């Protein structure tokens, strides 16, 4: 049996209760909305770029503990990174939560995000963990339509 505490780690619960960078960025030059039609989770991600670097990133919306904490920790991990670095982190994160690559060995890139490694034991929750990331990706690509997990 998968242990619930592998999924709901303290760091995750703490971020879901007190999400970081939870605000609108009125001056954002990139913005996208992400939506999971199955559970109704909905987030808006705001990005301000400085050349190739993510100068500021924030989010707002509603969702479960996994999606909200993932969004919160995502903003912390990509702030100050270049676009290429951010994409690389998303790639590693995605591999980790889908169980395609263990967190071990990728700690240097993933940092604190390794707390989400337990998600791979709960396949229906992968979409929760990746919603904000897909939304960030859409924001940076300049997509106008809301990105959907379906």
């Amino acid at each position, binding site marked *: *049996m*998968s242990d*619930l*505490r592998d*999924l*709901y780690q303290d760091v995750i*619960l703490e971020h879901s*209760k007190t999400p970081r960078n939870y605000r609108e960025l009125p001056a954002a030059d990139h913005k996208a909305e992400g939506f999971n039609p*199955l*559970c*109704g*989770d*909905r987030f808006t991600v705001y990005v301000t770029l400085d050349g190739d670097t993510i100068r500021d990133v924030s989010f707002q919306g*509603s*969702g*479960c*503990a*996994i999606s*909200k904490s993932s969004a919160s920790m995502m903003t912390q991990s990509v702030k100050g990174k270049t676009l290429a670095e951010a994409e690389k982190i998303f790639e590693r994160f995605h591999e980790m939560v889908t169980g395609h690559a263990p967190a071990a060995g990728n700690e240097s890139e993933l940092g604190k995000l390794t707390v989400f490694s337990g998600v791979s034991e*709960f396949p*229906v*929750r992968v979409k*929760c963990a990746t919603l904000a990331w897909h939304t960030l990706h859409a924001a940076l690509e300049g997509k106008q339509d809301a990105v959907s997990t379906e």
Partner: protein
Amino acid sequence: MTTAARKLDAEQRPAPIGGGLDVARVRADFPILQQRVHGKPLVYLDNAATSQKPRAVIDAIVRYYEGSNANIHRGVHYLSEIATKDYEAARRTAQEFINAPHAHEIIFVRGATEGINLVAQTFGRARVQPGDEVLITAMEHHSNIVPWQILCDEKGAKLRVAPINDQGELLLDEFAKLLGRRTKLAAVTHVSNALGTINPLKRMIELAHAHGVPVAVDGAQAVPHMKVDVQALDCDFYTFSGHKVYGPTGIGVLYGKSALLEAMPPYQGGGDMISSVTFEKTSYNKLPYKFEAGTPDIAGVIGLGAALTYVNGLGIGNIGAHEHDLLVYATQVVSAIPGVRLIGTAKEKAGVLSFVIEGVHPHDIGTILDQEGIAIRTGHHCSQPLMDRFGIPATARASFAAYNTREEVDALVRGIGKVREVFA
């Protein structure tokens, strides 16, 4: 299932003492309930999504495929004759189940969703004109919203929505006020899937008919839990899904009054729904075949017949009383948990308990309960406008069936305790 076999099934089950349900025996009829999930006994409380299937239904389907599989209505051979007889026997079982006047008023569809779409695309399309109105309620499932939106968009008509109160009860006066000269149809749910509210359907139909407005009823959440009598209701259409009433998925029933069905254009063209075809002109088959184009889900129909026969054996009144007892108990013990708020507290309710826990998203409730072997539904229950009405994105929903027990409600309460522990 043959008539003789149906009788046998019903006779084999002695009436339980005291008129109630022998729940232990009911549970033994459902093979799936014997399993463990994540090492815990399965507690299946997602019956409003789909019910489990008794052995009698599974066996009827296997018997059909092993012993009488053939296409129906056309074959002159032995197997086709048996299959046709069993298929039509299930139609009569469904007719009796909802007390429809005639067997030809029972049309087999894929489920309630297809039943509603059929009415919208045939009856609705012919009747609704630009500037007209279709009336629904604020507690409809998406399947009783979207088909009417599509129709209204196509016709330049308007969709009107009768409001509900904070308990999740229809405001009957407002419903009556919205019935006007331009109202061409009312499409209403009998029981709300997300809240469990039982609508005052008979009164709603009387009000609509007083304005000359026909009424189509979504009965998906009512048929498994209460005696439905379409003649007593005097509804014009009534539809339900087989899979929520212990039958297979992919099959359901649309009842319509003969005169309306006769006047309606067909829904889909194809085999079985014609009486003659030339390249110049086709004349359509008589009811109900006019609305059953193509080879139908024969096994599904036979399985549905077996399911309704099974329910008759238990007694729908007994099932309803048992579920009501569970609902009353669950309402009491779940609402007593600190931080829990019930969504949908109508006076008249079927066995649905929708709730939210302060500070915990329903999706997380669902995952934690699942680890305890408890299956509930979490999300918007295909009722997003209703969730908006209550200002919440989603709820957790436990829903009861004949085989559920008070001990399972206790397991739910312990599970919610675990949720609160994790999120403390």
